[in-house]
């Protein structure tokens, strides 16, 4: 077993060697521009792009003509939301999203607010799930778009996509989903889920960084977005710019592997994740954040009460994870996602996110369990809050000096 261990796979994943292998010819040999229509270099590149488009479309149940390549999910989210707003502004200015969305969605919505859009930010329940009834109540005659993530990046909670899709369809409202964390990990089917626009990226599913896509529905209804990048009119005029051929080939290969191996990966990862989680929950006062039923198979977000997350990460420096504590940020604010669940700030400060991957081994998980448990116990011995808890003092009864 090699140290450090990488368990931050919701941030990014290692490129699968098979993906890397598929990409290599497109750097040195078949390096043509896919838009060059008049020579074999261009034809080869175009052929590779077309094939990848099919591989990607197949994973999400789409038609290959509905795949628009972008630089990644942030750009896809920007294109979807800004593009829909510009295209359908005459119909209405109201957009619905949720407080636990990624910043790429939230900040895009904030930008549109300055341009006259009205945005509803829906709350979530304590388990991170959005209530479909809340969405229905928020839809107005001038609502043009509902934008909700498929699965959350911090807690892995999967939203009831099919119900939301059906609701949007019945109300004639477009439905966009940031599916960055879901695609390649759980079955995503744009037709069955009733999704009109879907953002995805390669580097969260063992593909390369810098390449992503936006699915834009062509039938029932035919959706259009205004381009946010002007130029040569690539990608059906929705996203200009020379195509990143090696990246696209890698993205395609990653999607194909995900489609073929998802079932077995899921079974193995869920087993490992559940084992990690159940062992760590044996520590007193530790809690899983987010709904445990409707959740990505490879994510566990756990709070270890009375231990601060960043201090904890320092004690487990051989293991790469993320914390909801934001001790490093100037604002000292903990994760807004965990806060949105209604978690006490101190629980948010005490959280770690474990994200497993196709490459994670049982041995690594055993090491992680042992290391994290030792660190939590060591830091609790050092924690005044733990001592007070053990003495039965209610921490809420103390007048803290905020700073």
């Amino acid at each position: 077993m090699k140290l450090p261990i990488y368990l931050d796979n919701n941030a990014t994943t290692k490129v699968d060697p098979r993906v890397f292998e598929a990409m290599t010819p497109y750097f040195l040999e078949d390096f043509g521009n896919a838009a060059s229509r008049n020579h074999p270099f261009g034809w080869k590149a175009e052929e590779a792009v077309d094939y990848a488009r099919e591989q990607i479309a197949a994973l999400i149940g789409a038609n290959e003509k509905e795949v628009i390549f972008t630089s990644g999910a942030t750009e896809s989210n920007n294109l979807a939301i800004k593009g829909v707003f510009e295209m359908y502004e005459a119909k209405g200015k109201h957009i619905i999203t949720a407080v636990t969305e990624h910043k790429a969605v939230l900040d895009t919505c904030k930008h549109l607010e300055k341009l006259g859009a009205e945005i509803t930010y829906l709350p979530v329940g304590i388990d991170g799930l959005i209530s479909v009834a809340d969405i229905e109540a928020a839809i107005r005659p001038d609502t043009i778009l509902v934008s909700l993530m498929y699965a959350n990046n911090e807690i892995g909670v999967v939203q009831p996509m099919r119900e939301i899709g059906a609701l949007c369809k019945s109300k004639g409202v477009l439905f966009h989903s940031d599916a960055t964390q879901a695609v390649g990990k759980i079955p995503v089917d744009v037709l069955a889920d009733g999704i009109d626009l879907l953002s995805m990226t390669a580097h969260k599913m063992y593909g390369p960084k810098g390449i992503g896509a936006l699915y834009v529905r062509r039938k029932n209804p035919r959706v259009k977005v205004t381009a946010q990048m002007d130029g040569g009119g690539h990608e059906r005029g929705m996203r200009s710019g020379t195509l990143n051929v090696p990246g696209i080939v890698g993205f395609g290969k990653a999607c194909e592997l995900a489609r073929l191996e998802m079932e077995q990966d899921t079974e193995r990862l869920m087993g490992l994740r559940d084992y990690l989680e159940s062992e760590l929950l044996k520590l007193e006062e530790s809690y899983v954040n987010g709904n445990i039923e409707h959740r990505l198979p490879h994510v566990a977000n756990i709070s270890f009460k009375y231990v601060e997350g960043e201090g904890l990460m320092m004690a487990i420096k051989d293991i790469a994870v993320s914390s909801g504590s934001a001790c490093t940020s100037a604002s000292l604010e903990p994760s807004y996602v965990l806060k949105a669940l209604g978690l006490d700030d101190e629980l948010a400060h005490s959280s770690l996110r474990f994200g497993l991957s196709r490459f994670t081994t049982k041995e690594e998980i055993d090491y992680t369990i042992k290391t994290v448990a030792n660190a939590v116990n060591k830091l609790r011995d050092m924690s005044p809050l733990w001592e007070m808890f053990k003495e039965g003092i209610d921490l809420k009864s103390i007048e803290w000096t905020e700073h």
Partner: protein
Amino acid sequence: MAYSEKVIDHYNNPRNVGTLDKASHKVGTGLVGAPECGDVMRLQIEVNPETGIIEDAKFKTFGCGSAIASSSLATEWLKGKSVDDALTIDNMDIVEELALPPVKIHCSVLAEDAIKAAINDYRAKQGLAPIEDTKKHY
């Protein structure tokens, strides 16, 4: 973000972790910070009432590595000092000693606050008025 070697040393081998009898008239306890902010420090001093010398100091801290290191260092510095000398410990001395980056300066401020709070608690037990904190941080 990389931590300095001194922070790592204090974090891995914290000095003077523990608890003194807060009911004792010789012991002053300072509890500063808030769980919601992600840092809570409890710093205790045991003073010889005859000499005014701090004979023991203990801490417990909930917080990041820099917060733990700041309080560990503070207890080291407090031991053997007179209460009056302890009041001269400045948060910037801690910043310098531990090479804390700007985002971690609040950890040193918290440690200084904890020292002052512990001394005031001790003074109150001796029937003395608290020392006003005239220093403005930031």
